């Protein structure tokens, strides 16, 4: 699939999710457990009750694979960049950690998401969070201007991941940290999934092999690249994803096949230093 087409699909897909409020209750006639389902998924991927309670209502769309380790590492006064900030859930949690002397900048290429994040910032009265409509392959930030980059289940969607890591390296200060979560593959996905455009925004088709992902980070110049956590991709997350649901339905996948796909996909947290 051409890069440009992927961008369009991803932007449109997430615009829809921003408007509907959650990845659940999507385009297909699905679940509608609403907030409860989203919070349940978030709990499973490692966010604490307090974190879920403290973020403004509507900021958690249940789309991440979880980045609690990155959040735990933040120190007061740090400048944090959130790649693909969405409705702002992780940005707000980061903002609480870095305090008034620190700040968080969220970058997302979907206007509807940025708008929602901005509304959420106002609702929660966050003064140390800013959102910019921008592309993570072309970051609108100066060289060596941020201490920490966080990103939660986003980079897999990029058609040019090497560039995302190069840009991340550029904007980090010397000694700055990359603390990201993402989904990667342990085995290549079957062709019929990879070819599905819809799978792209369900995070799947854009995911690459774990070794390749790590090699890309190293190639960008990062040091001490470490996988600090690896968990099998929560099947509930996939079963809850409207795009994945459509695919399962359209391809008439059996439960067994779905499990096979789920076993090839893992969610990892990676830490690296500039």
């Amino acid at each position, binding site marked *: 699939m051409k890069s440009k087409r992927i961008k369009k699909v991803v932007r449109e897909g997430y615009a829809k999710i921003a408007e509907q409020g959650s990845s659940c209750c999507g385009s297909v006639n699905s679940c509608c457990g609403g907030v409860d389902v989203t919070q349940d998924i978030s709990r499973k991927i490692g966010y604490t009750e307090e974190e879920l309670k403290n973020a403004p209502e509507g900021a958690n769309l249940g789309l991440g694979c979880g980045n609690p380790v990155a959040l735990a590492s933040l120190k007061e006064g740090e400048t944090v960049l959130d790649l693909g900030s969405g409705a702002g859930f992780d940005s707000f949690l980061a903002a609480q950690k870095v305090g008034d002397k620190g700040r968080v900048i969220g970058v997302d290429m979907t*206007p509807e998401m940025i708008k929602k994040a901005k509304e959420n910032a106002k609702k929660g009265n966050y003064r140390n969070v800013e959102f910019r409509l921008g*592309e993570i392959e*072309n*970051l*609108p*930030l100066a*060289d060596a*201007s941020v201490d920490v980059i966080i990103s939660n289940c986003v980079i897999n969607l990029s058609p040019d991941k090497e560039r995302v890591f190069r840009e991340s390296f550029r904007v980090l200060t010397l000694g700055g940290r990359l603390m990201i979560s993402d989904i990667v593959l342990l085995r290549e996905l079957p062709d019929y999934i990879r070819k599905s455009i819809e799978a792209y925004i369900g995070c799947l088709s854009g995911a690459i092999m774990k070794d390749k992902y790590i090699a890309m980070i190293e190639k960008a110049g990062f040091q001490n690249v470490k996988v600090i956590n690896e968990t099998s991709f929560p099947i509930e997350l996939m079963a809850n994803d409207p795009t994945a649901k459509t695919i399962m339905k359209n391809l008439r996948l059996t439960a067994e096949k779905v499990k096979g796909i789920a076993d090839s996909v893992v969610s990892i947290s990676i830490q690296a230093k500039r």
Partner: protein
Amino acid sequence: MDILACPIDKYHPLELHVFEEKSEIVEGIIVCPKCNRFYPIIDEIPHMLPDNLRTKEEDVKFLRKWAGQLPPKIANEGKPFNLTTN
């Protein structure tokens, strides 16, 4: 603004022109003095997108709205679009 850079040539610092301000800047433009690209601020949100994610219609509409307050170099020669763009 202090750490914002042009997403195309990474130039920093950028120029800010404010058109409407309340508790925050509501509308304005951010300009890269190096490549002469402008980035609109719409509804308090800076749009820092690369050229391929921008549309001529929206950019020109924005420029027309603030035509009287644009710096001449943006009105006439701004990138990726300006008021002389057909």
